[in-house]
């Protein structure tokens, strides 16, 4: 029979190792640590169309990740998409007249919100709204416009 103390030590280390594995899966593999609600402030932007933007999509400025999309809602009066952006507290000097746009990373990549800084002396605070917001490009609309223009061009050529 193996020493009882040794058995208990082994079982204790087994439990500790498995807890460490769970913590590693939670913190290192998934985004639990990156998605803490403290240390951020929320601003909102209104878009006519957010395309395929998802909650938790990145928010970038100059290509640098500064926050995440916290929520996407529909304003039932104005039929706008209200996008709440959770910005890291480190980046609290974003000018008031900053503009926001929904872009796509690469041709097939996910969509994200890009902020383009303005020149205002005042800075965005918790709950402020970004005035200038550029909607997502929806591929079908662009294709539709393109085909429409091509057809119109054909007619003009025939005249």
């Amino acid at each position, binding site marked *: 029979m193996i020493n009882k103390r040794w058995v208990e030590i082994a079982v204790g280390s087994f439990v500790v190792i498995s807890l460490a594995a*769970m913590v590693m899966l939670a913190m290192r593999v*998934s985004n639990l640590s990156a998605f803490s609600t403290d240390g951020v402030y929320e601003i909102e932007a209104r878009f006519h169309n957010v395309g395929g933007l998802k909650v938790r999509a990145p928010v970038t400025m100059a290509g640098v990740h500064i926050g995440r999309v916290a929520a996407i809602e529909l304003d039932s009066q104005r039929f706008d998409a209200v996008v709440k952006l959770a910005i890291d507290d480190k980046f609290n000097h974003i000018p008031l007249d900053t503009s926001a746009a929904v872009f796509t990373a690469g041709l097939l990549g996910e969509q994200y919100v890009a902020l383009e800084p303005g020149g205002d002396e005042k800075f965005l605070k918790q709950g402020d709204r970004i005035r200038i917001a550029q909607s997502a490009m929806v591929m079908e609309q662009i294709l539709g416009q393109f085909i429409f223009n091509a057809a119109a061009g054909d007619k003009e050529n025939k005249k």
Partner: protein
Amino acid sequence: MIATLLQDFGRVTLTAIARMGRGNLFMLRVLHALPSLRFGGPLLVQQIYSVGVLSLQIIAVSGLSVGMVLGLQGYNMLVDFGAEQSLGQATALSLVRELGPVLTALLFAGRAGSALTAEIGLMKVTEQLSAMEMMAVDPVKRIIVPRFVAAFLSMPMLAAIFSAIGVLGGYFVGVGLLGVDSGAFWSQMQSKVNFGEDILNGFVKSIVFGLVAAWIAVFEGYDAVPTTEGVSRATTRTVVETAFAVLGLDFILTAVMF
């Protein structure tokens, strides 16, 4: 002729249904005896040692090699699309969602489940269980419950270790050997693996598999025909039935969860 055939068929069906019924009744007895178990007591600790700790070796080695192979294969596939940055995500998702719980359960059935069945079956053959009853010691409380609980608790822990080591194995191959960027490996993984959806669902899977594997192992041992051959059959059945149950349940759980 046809009547004989039908009789055989009927007998097989009835035997199967009777076994299922015995399994359920046995489970009820185990659940009924569950409150008598002292957590942290020597019975449970000893069983967690033999079921969980001694399985660590095979779980760690398999997890590492599965993760390394995933890294290697995933890289070969992703590099064609110039998407080798997503290697971390691909490795982690397949490990956490599927391979971790399922492979751990299969290995667990082979390593620990079969040992439990053989141990309990041999106790029955050598009439140790009857001897306990003679001494007014309930064998379900004394023998079955600690083993069942130990197996049930160990399975999710082993699955978590398997997944974590697998991710590390994928990291060694992808980043160390094949030159994927280390930052991209982790950041892609973190941005695409969701704690609530992927990791907790994988954990729930491993809990369900743990319950099934533990149940089958102790039931087969307790229900074994008390002969040498009966014990060997019961041990085989434990492994085969656990594999079937885990793979079937995995399909159902995946369809419900993801």
